[in-house]
């Protein structure tokens, strides 16, 4: 146990100081001094991320700030190349004249079975969706299983059955795989990794960095269903609600959207970190501001109710069958209509706009009529005690 992190943080802040002497600062009008502090924060936020922890903590897997820091400071640093650098849901490759999308994702959900699906559905749909939002037609999947000693074979069959069904629904095939078994206690029943390839047949250049002021931001349906379902399914909350996971393959929905609006700028599936995280990714990647309107964001009453009770914000809760799309402002109505024409997009809605002001910042106009910043969370949303 050392006190070093405090000293280090203090030293860091000294580096970030303005050249002004303390007296000079004091003479500035109050408003300017506040602006100066805010500018300093902005600079500190833009600095290259650094992992301060000596060990991995649960926060590093949450999809929030800690995850972003880990990815940029460790993985991107190690593997940096132009294909990886955009940090999109899938990499886009040119192979022998064809444009290919490649992605991979691991699934460690607990419990393995939950209302609306199981780890098998997720493992197929999640990878299909990562390919779909990259503008690709998903084709082939790999499946790697890490099984814990003692895991019931019947459960494994249940999982593979739903993987097969999900693959059929999405029109993909599992064409290669791997199995490993670890000692009891070294894993939690069953972990699955899937990788997927798809072909990009359309002439699209998708990427959140392409968002431009005036663009509309659309979400394809009610948010937070999956995350809240999982939290309740863990049975630790003694809350019961009639909700189930939204896990679904989005390739059909995406195809409909791209047919109607070929000029879509970007799509993301709103998994870990929820819609709020994607809005922040848009703001950061494109160096634009985002203004979202709370009243326009579709949230089921059950999800809102559970979130209120737990003191968490549905905007940070994971979905597994929802996408966020950025489209040029003039295409917004057509995009919403195209999404609503598909059963998975019935409640699609424009939830906000991209703007030039306040680049890098996501603001929310609250239902109450105020405004606030929607930042990345540090780690998982934690329930509040009061």
């Amino acid at each position, binding site marked *: 146990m050392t006190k070093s992190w405090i000293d280090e943080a203090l030293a860091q802040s000294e580096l970030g100081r303005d050249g002004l002497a303390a007296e000079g600062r004091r003479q500035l009008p109050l408003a300017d001094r506040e602006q100066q502090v805010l500018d300093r924060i902005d600079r500190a936020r833009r600095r290259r991320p650094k992992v301060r922890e000596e060990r991995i903590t649960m926060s590093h897997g949450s999809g929030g700030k800690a995850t972003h820091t880990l990815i940029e400071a460790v993985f991107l640093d190690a593997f940096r190349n132009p294909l990886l650098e955009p940090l999109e849901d899938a990499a886009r490759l040119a192979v022998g004249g064809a444009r290919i999308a490649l992605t991979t994702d691991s699934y460690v959900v607990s419990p393995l079975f939950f209302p609306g699906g199981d780890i098998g559905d997720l493992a197929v749909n999640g990878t299909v969706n990562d390919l779909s939002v990259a503008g690709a037609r998903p084709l082939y999947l790999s499946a790697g299983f890490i099984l814990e000693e003692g895991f019931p074979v019947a459960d494994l069959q249940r999982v593979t059955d739903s993987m097969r069904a999900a693959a059929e629904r999405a029109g993909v095939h599992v064409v290669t795989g791997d199995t490993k078994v670890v000692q009891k206690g070294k894993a939690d029943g069953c972990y699955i990794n899937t990788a997927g390839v798809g072909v990009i047949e359309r002439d699209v250049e998708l990427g959140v960095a392409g968002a431009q002021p005036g663009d509309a931001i659309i979400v394809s349906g009610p948010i937070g269903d999956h995350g809240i379902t999982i939290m309740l399914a863990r049975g630790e909350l003694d809350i019961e609600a009639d909700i189930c996971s939204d896990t679904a393959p989005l390739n059909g929905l995406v195809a409909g959207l791209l047919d109607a609006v070929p000029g879509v700028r970007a799509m993301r599936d709103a998994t870990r970190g929820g819609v709020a995280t994607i809005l922040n990714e848009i703001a950061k990647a494109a160096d634009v501001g985002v203004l979202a309107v709370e009243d326009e964001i579709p949230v089921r009453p059950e999800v809102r109710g559970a979130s209120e009770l737990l003191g968490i914000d549905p905007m940070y809760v994971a979905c597994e069958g929802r996408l966020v799309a950025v489209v040029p402002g003039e295409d917004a109505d057509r995009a919403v209509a195209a999404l609503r024409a598909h059963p998975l997009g019935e409640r699609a809605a424009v939830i906000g706009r991209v703007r030039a002001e306040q680049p890098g910042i996501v*603001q929310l106009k609250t239902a109450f009529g105020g*405004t606030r910043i929607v930042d990345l969370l540090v780690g998982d949303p934690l329930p*509040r005690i*009061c």
Partner: protein
Amino acid sequence: MRFVDEFRDADKAHALAAKIAALCEPGRQYKLMEVCGGHTHTIYKHGLEDYLPESITLVHGPGCPVCVIPMGRVDDAIHLASQPDVIMTSFGDMMRVPGSGGSFFDANAEGTSIRMVYSPLDSLKIARQNPDKQVVFMAIGFETTAPSTAMTMLRASHEGLENFSVFCNHVTIVPAIKAILDSPDLRLDGFIGPGHVSTVIGCRPYEFIAKQYGKPVVVAGFEPLDILQSIYLLMLQLSQGRSEVENQYSRVVPWDGNLVALKAIGETMELRPYFEWRGLGFISHSALKVRDTYASMDAELLFQVPGVRVADPKACQCGEVLKGVLKPWECKVFGTACTPETPIGTCMVSPEGACAAYYNFGRMNRNRVAEVSGTSRS
């Protein structure tokens, strides 16, 4: 959603805002403290300050239970959790609070088993499932959560559970308010009283604030309209030269509190002679310990607790922020060394802390006026 949306009506908010603005005397500045962290959270989450005139400043008080736990106590908890065969249970928002060597999350990465629970009673479930382990509940919070700790102890005692104990860090709100009132650089005009605490202790304990210190108190609910209405009631008192305790949250708060809850606390816990608060220092009779009759459930007696005091870094100005002398951004380390990812002082620790709330939600306040009247209204 029923019982929620009624309290978030923007039209009613506009009407209240106009009434509040009408009560402001020209040229006078008002500083109102919301004591409770839950209020701070509501204020920022809903952007409530957008409705207030420039002359009213809300000062975010000491009522965030995770924020006021000194680093030394976090270190003690981690020390307890690292004892062989100990499982510690804790509320979720305690998990990220840093001690001098890191947070509970960091400790878990080093091998401790600190589990998040939603109710202290869940600790008993864990104790029953793990009879060969000692389950220690990291008890924190004001009078709001103390009854649930007390009920858990009573239940454990009733069941004869022998492997459950409590590391008691419960604090009481009134001595903290008194400490703030007694500080020489105080500049507050009134208090938005803590709603949840008052469901337990009632409104009577605040009468000294109105009588001896001449400051109005309005006990408030947690929805944005509750808070706006409470600000209106405070402004009304100030404009009429009154200082009284009023109960805006009467749908939940009984004037005399909850006697059953108070009795459970009294049965299982007693006041400590003094306790250290982060940012405020030592305050006498401001915290609870496990009562001697329940010594077998007092983790501080069952285990060796180092009890080393860890001073906040000198650069940290949380005390001044808590008293309303400084605004969060005026602190020397705000936003650079001290951020929500690496909180140095109490106010940045939990989302309810004044600095964290300002950092996460309020940084745009300055642009707000221009913006609300300009583009974003369209």
